[in-house]
């Protein structure tokens, strides 16, 4: 799978993973404290934050594996920074990334409209919920609470990760920084990116 990847695309995922790993860890801190007050449901409405890097990278690079790899790399960086969630984050990242990847695969890696990005956010939400069901012991909770948690997570995945990811990527695209990546080429036909060659 990696053969067709340019090194600069891999490194791009990695540096984005670093930026978002920092954001993720900030939110874990916030989430942890809230979780003491309102329980595990505290994480649910901001859960989409944790899926955002996979959607941004897939949207920019547009290659099979972008969602899966970027989310896993972000998890690896989080583990390298050191935190109390630890190595199982890599597994979490892998599962969430797979969820988003599934959505892009289902559209044949051809469509990157807003609804596909939302679908990818939902994919991550569904996969991560199934994983949480096993690892975090959701099985012991009342089904009505689970339904509420699941709904919140799916909405958060679609809105924060899907729409938020698109909002951020489009903002970045407008700066002209993404010259040389698939997103510029695919959309560049419509509006020419203003920018200069430096060097």
């Amino acid at each position, binding site marked *: 799978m990696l053969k067709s990847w340019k090194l600069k695309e891999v490194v791009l995922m990695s540096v984005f993973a670093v930026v978002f790993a920092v954001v993720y860890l900030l939110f874990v801190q916030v989430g942890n404290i809230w979780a003491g007050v309102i329980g595990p449901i505290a994480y649910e409405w901001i859960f989409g934050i944790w899926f955002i890097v996979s959607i941004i990278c897939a949207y920019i690079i547009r290659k099979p594996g972008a969602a899966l790899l970027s989310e896993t790399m972000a998890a690896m960086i989080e583990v390298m920074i050191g935190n109390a969630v630890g190595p199982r984050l890599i597994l979490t990242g892998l599962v969430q990334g797979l969820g988003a990847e599934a959505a892009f695969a289902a559209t044949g890696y051809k469509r990157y409209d807003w609804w596909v990005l939302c679908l990818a956010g939902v994919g991550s939400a569904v996969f991560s919920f199934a994983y949480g069901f096993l690892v975090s012991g959701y099985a012991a909770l009342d089904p009505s609470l689970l339904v509420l948690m699941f709904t919140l997570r799916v909405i958060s995945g679609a809105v924060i990760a899907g729409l938020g990811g698109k909002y951020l990527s489009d903002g970045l695209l*407008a700066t*002209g920084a993404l010259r040389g990546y698939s997103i510029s080429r695919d959309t560049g036909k419509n509006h020419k990116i203003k920018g200069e060659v430096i060097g």
Partner: protein
Amino acid sequence: MVNTLSKKSQVEIVATPVIIDFKDFTFQFPEDESPVFRNISFSIQAGERVALYGPSGCGKSTLLYLMNRLYPDNCDGDLEGSITLWQRDAACFAPGEINHRVATVFQDPDTQFCMPTVEQEMAFTLENLHVTRPEMEHRITETLEMTGLTQFRKTTIQTLSGGMKQRVATACAILMQPEVLLLDEPLAHLDPLTAKHYVEWLDTLKWSYPLTIVAVEHQLDLWGTFFDRAIHVRASGDLPIELNPTKPCITFPKRVSAIQPEVALEAKNVHVHVKGKQLLKDVSFQLQRGEIAVLAGPNGSGKSSLLKTICGILKKSDGTIKSGTMLPGYVPQSPEQLFVTQRVKDEIRFSNNTKEEEITDIMTRLRLNEIEQAHPFSVSHGQKRRVAIGTMLSDKRPVLLLDEPTSGQDEAALKELFHLINARAKEGFAILIVTHDMTFAAAIADTIFLMNHGQLTGRFDNDVMWLQEKLLEKHQLVAPIGVCLHD
């Protein structure tokens, strides 16, 4: 045979084979409407030291990336004509193959390393070349000795200064025992004194075999007599060549001081402590309207902290700062850090207390009308700085503080900066500039402040200062060329 190369006779150079040859070469980026180069031709012989010379944006780095085969693969560019490397078509080399013979040092000291320590970074390089373990040990030790970096073997790269990072990057390149060493503006991010030391260091390295050095550069004056030839990079045709190039430093126009009697900024006994560390100690000074002052001193002496304190970003622990009704404006080294909107015009309009006529006036004065609809991140570096200054003017800030505006700028950009600052001074703004470039300082400043260890160590009128050789040395500054030190 030990070969120092630079002082070889012409006859010998002519006798050496051509190893890099561009013929009728045309290149275009897929996003662009027109080619960067059209039908250019030039060649480089083995053992030469060549500078590819031209202003920023002329595409000279692109040429370098075509020599080490980073392009066209990485940008999917379209090319016509031929590039021949060692009498072989460049496209015939397998990925990575050419990088065993051509090594590169890039301009940004902070983005050339992927491992934590010097030794690990060197090991990464040798592992790429499939060198055996004992050979790695041997080559690392040998290269560190040759480059005088042995004491840094276990050092974490990020703790090194920019100049040392560039030496480490060069050592990693030498480690590959390349036939060609490419240098991509290696001095761009260094201050003049550090740059001078780097060139001297590179010049004294003793090669055990003839090495070709090709450098992309816009400031030849820092290199002295390092190069045998300079190739002027142009957009089309045969590129003109200059033998034994030396470039005089930039000459700026003469300016007339615009100082007015009113005080624009006054700082008294300012102290700043951040987390138990004293950043500024008892700083007092004043600026008048229309005055241009330069703040100079070694890295880490507190220059940036002083600017940030004056404009209120850093909280002062003690002292007073007066600048009328508005705080001074601040333009960071990367002006885009100030930007919060998505259009140049919105950026100027962002402060609410400016009337529409005033905005139009600012846009005209700073020549921003042509880019008013553009995204502030997508314009050129010089334009970004003008936008940043525009935002400060529309906030009605009476003083402008510029942090390292000269860093990495070529001749044209420096001259534009000169005029930009000069025009603001004439409008009555007081301006304080942090810079290491003393040639620029000598041309623009009315006053020069020296700083060391968080304290102001002197205030000089422009013309007096350059005679104080000891003082300059103590503050790690290079006197501007053309100023006679022993009158």
